[in-house]
């Protein structure tokens, strides 16, 4: 069964450092998403991406964040200068399309710990 894969599963970084979280969406999917979940809180939408550009982003997704699809398979989330409050589980997801009766498939997440 096709699945979304994320690497690494756990990343520890020092405050102020840049991190790149990687995702390989399902191959025939066209829409990609990043969500995060701070410990004890809701899963929050960060950004959606289609046709090599951001479709929608939340208020959380400020200038410190960027996304990229550097090649035909990877979808990355970069945090330029990490803060303690960026510590969270980050989930990547993909779907065939954004509208209509379609579901998102999630990766297993990357736990980011900023120290």
């Amino acid at each position: 069964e096709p699945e979304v894969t994320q690497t690494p599963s756990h990343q520890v970084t020092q405050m102020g450092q840049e991190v790149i979280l990687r995702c390989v969406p399902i191959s025939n999917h066209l829409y990609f998403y990043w969500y995060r979940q701070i410990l004890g809180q809701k899963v929050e939408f960060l950004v959606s991406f289609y046709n090599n550009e951001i479709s929608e982003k939340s208020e959380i997704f400020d200038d410190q964040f960027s996304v990229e699809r550097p090649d035909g398979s990877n979808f990355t989330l970069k945090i330029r200068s990490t803060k303690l409050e960026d510590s969270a589980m980050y989930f990547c997801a993909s779907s065939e399309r954004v509208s209509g009766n379609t579901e998102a498939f999630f990766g297993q997440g990357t736990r980011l710990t900023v120290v």
Partner: protein
Amino acid sequence: AQSVSQHNHHVILSEAASLELGCNYSYGGTVNLFWYVQYPGQHLQLLLKYFSGDPLVKGIKGFEAEFIKSKFSFNLRKPSVQWSDTAEYFCAVKTLGRLYFGRGTQLTVWP
């Protein structure tokens, strides 16, 4: 914006007990409804979904959910839980293309 509420943060049951997890949402327009489950160390997996039609939806592993439009609810049920159902359960609502999640309910089932 859509708001999704899961009222139970942690539910503890014995095996064979019945389960009902509540989920309510705020936006009254066209919605797609989902329950996802996350087993320890694993990714979010789709348990069941509602798009249209019969408001009683059956999912994997004996789970079902009922969409009650008038109550803006999509409660998850299982008549008899097993130890292997121990996981975190997330209700999600898709509105205008975006998925909104509830906070999640941690279910612990004692053997």
